[in-house]
């Protein structure tokens, strides 16, 4: 493989990561092939997949089925034998609205508030996250002093627990927090209540979420940037192509598969936003940062009289949305591959 690489190309991050994976696969593959050869059996791969399938069935498939069954039952009991079958009543409750544009007209108004808030969050956060991650990756890909240090700095928030992230930003943004101290109190002005203002609480939720995750997505894009052969840039430079044109015509198209991965991961993560925002705003002011997972958590676990059936139904509906998003990603991925082949 190395001999086929262009003479000017340097080993890439993705390539470097691939080497141990190939070695590991080789270690597993060799005895399997030997066993197949010795026994003459050809279905050995399926046999070795069985443990994995069993674990998947017990810990993923079965809970999915149980969750669906839960969504068809009512009452406060945890065990199914203490719950009564109510059919589609939970779904009906969630989906009954006089007008779907007005959550207050819905029977389960908080569900629709959470749906609306999650939609707005996704629409605002994902494009912003993509732009910030791409900019970060482009900057970190440049030759500069202390590049490794800066990469570590941008990746560091990813290592923090979401609860820690939420608490840190809460201390910064609360009325007696660091931001007000720096912006207003030193100047003798009245502090601003960032987390009790609907608009600013939303801005804080989006901003903190981007801050917490941008390092991860920037790393994926950085790997993509490093996989682009240098000779293409050198050729463009020799042709006197302007940097902006290089970005739009070379970098962006060649980075598209990575961008697509980042888009899908960011979309799914964004729909599932919960932990750091829950600690930061608690879903407030009022319900302005109440998102789907918090709604499900509170309905199923945190409220005084829990409703696990309603929470299960809401989680099934949310799962449907995630499946649709994933299918869209697969379609977009195939279409991108086809364009690449042409």
């Amino acid at each position, binding site marked *: 493989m190395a001999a086929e690489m262009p003479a000017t190309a340097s080993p890439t991050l993705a390539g470097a990561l691939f080497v141990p994976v190939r070695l590991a696969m080789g270690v597993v593959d060799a005895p399997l092939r030997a066993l197949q050869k010795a026994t003459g059996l050809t279905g050995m791969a399926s046999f070795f997949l069985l443990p994995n399938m069993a674990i998947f069935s017990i810990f993923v498939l079965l809970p999915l089925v149980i969750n669906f069954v839960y969504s068809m039952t009512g*009452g406060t009991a945890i065990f199914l034998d203490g719950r009564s079958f109510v059919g589609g009543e939970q779904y009906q409750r969630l989906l009954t609205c006089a007008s779907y544009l007005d959550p207050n007209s819905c029977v389960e108004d*908080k569900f629709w508030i959470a749906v609306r808030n999650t939609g707005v969050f996704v629409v605002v956060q994902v494009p912003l996250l993509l732009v910030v991650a791409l900019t970060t990756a482009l900057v970190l890909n440049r030759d500069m002093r202390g590049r490794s240090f800066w990469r570590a700095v941008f990746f560091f928030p990813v290592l923090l627990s979401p609860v820690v992230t939420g608490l840190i930003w809460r201390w910064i943004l609360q009325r007696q927090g660091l931001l007000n101290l720096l912006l207003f109190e030193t100047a003798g002005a009245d502090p601003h209540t960032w987390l009790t203002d609907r608009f600013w*609480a939303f801005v804080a939720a989006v901003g903190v979420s981007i801050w917490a995750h941008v390092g991860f997505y920037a790393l994926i894009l950085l790997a993509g940037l490093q996989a682009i052969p240098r000779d293409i840039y050198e050729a463009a430079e020799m042709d006197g192509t302007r940097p902006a044109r290089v970005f739009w015509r070379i970098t962006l198209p060649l980075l598209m598969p990575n961008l697509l991965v980042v888009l899908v991961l960011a979309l799914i993560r964004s729909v599932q936003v919960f932990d750091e925002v829950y600690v930061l705003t608690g879903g*407030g*002011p*009022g319900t302005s940062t109440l998102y789907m997972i*918090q709604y499900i958590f509170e309905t199923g676990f945190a409220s*005084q009289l829990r409703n696990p059936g309603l929470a299960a139904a809401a989680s099934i509906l949310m799962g449907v949305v995630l499946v649709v998003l994933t299918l869209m990603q697969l379609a977009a991925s195939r279409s991108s591959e086809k364009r690449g082949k042409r």
Partner: protein
Amino acid sequence: MTRTKLLLAALLSTLLTTTAFAGDVRIMWYSDGVEGEVLKDLIDRFMKENPDVKVTIDNVSYANIQEQLPVQLAAGNGPDIARVTNLKAQAQHWLDLTPYIKDPKYWQDNYGDQADWMRADGSKVITGFMTQITLTGGFANKTLFDQAGVPIPDAKATWDDWAAAAKKVADSQKVPYALALDRSGHRLTGPNLSYGANYIGADGMPAPVDQGSKDFISRFVGWNSNGTAEKDVWVSAAGTTYRAAADDFINGQLVYYYSGSWQVPNFATKIGDNFDWVATGSPCGTAACTGMPGGAGLVAVKYTKNPKDVGRVMDYLASEPIAKEFAERTLFLPSNKAVIAKGLDFKSDNAQVKAALNAFVAASTTTSPAALKLPGWKWSDAYYSALVGRVGQAVAGELSLDEAYKRIDQDVADKVKQAQ
């Protein structure tokens, strides 16, 4: 055969590592002040006297008790003993201690008045005892009042009087918050009852939001809008999340704080000599000047594997000398009748603390009959959680007051339907 024995031995050892040993007792405990340390000390002494019982104290946050313990209990798990405030609604999970305690009559005589708070309606079982009796009430930052030259309102002052006085002090002293009330349905209920609210219908089921509740809720929402009340507490959270304003009071940022007697030891430890503060009892409404009684109960969980040892630990903690020592060191109002009758010597040199405890004892005499009924009413928590969620939305400007009242009624009705 040997292989079978080996497998059985392995299985047995696995089972042994996942089940409680005889003598193991776990207590799930939360603290408002220093009571966690006092409990540890008392339990250490118990274990010295009873080396065959190993008691483990799991110190958790109040949010854990409110959110995680109910899920554990509903799944048939949980600790052996737990300190809980939401006692009635979870009564089906408590163990009947009668066969495991030495002298059930002692428990009936000394803790009988609150026994109904922690058992199902109509039942006569003994499930635990109240570690302390609490009463909601206000605290004023006396230093700020004195500096502003504003007299502290008297015992007959109304909520309007307190709001006006606190705002005057806050404006004068450039303090960010005039008045705050914990984000809790229980806390909102005392003032509601003072304006004549009644939650319990003639049939014992929840009644719709009435004029009494509306009179106070509309005032409270108005105070949040005009900057009299601390908006951060009620607005910076959603749903039924509990939030207290204790830290703002401790930091001298708040003039008047409505919380309860359990804050006294917390203030004694954390405020120290930083400023003078006083407990003020509950402000008056048009119908009463009532706070809400309550408290934390220590209950045995029926899923315990060691009920006999649980009984021994409970007997020890409920005994007269231990209950007396616990109250005196934690500065909590005890529930044990004999302890109350013989008097207490609270362990504090702080005159403010003794005055505050006396103020709460005095305030308990004006507690309304409606307030005394609520701790033993099955639907209290359903009502409280609906109140806190919807009033929170009204304070944040998401719902009009009329919409909030309608939603409270609907939420309570849904919870009743779901629980039946």
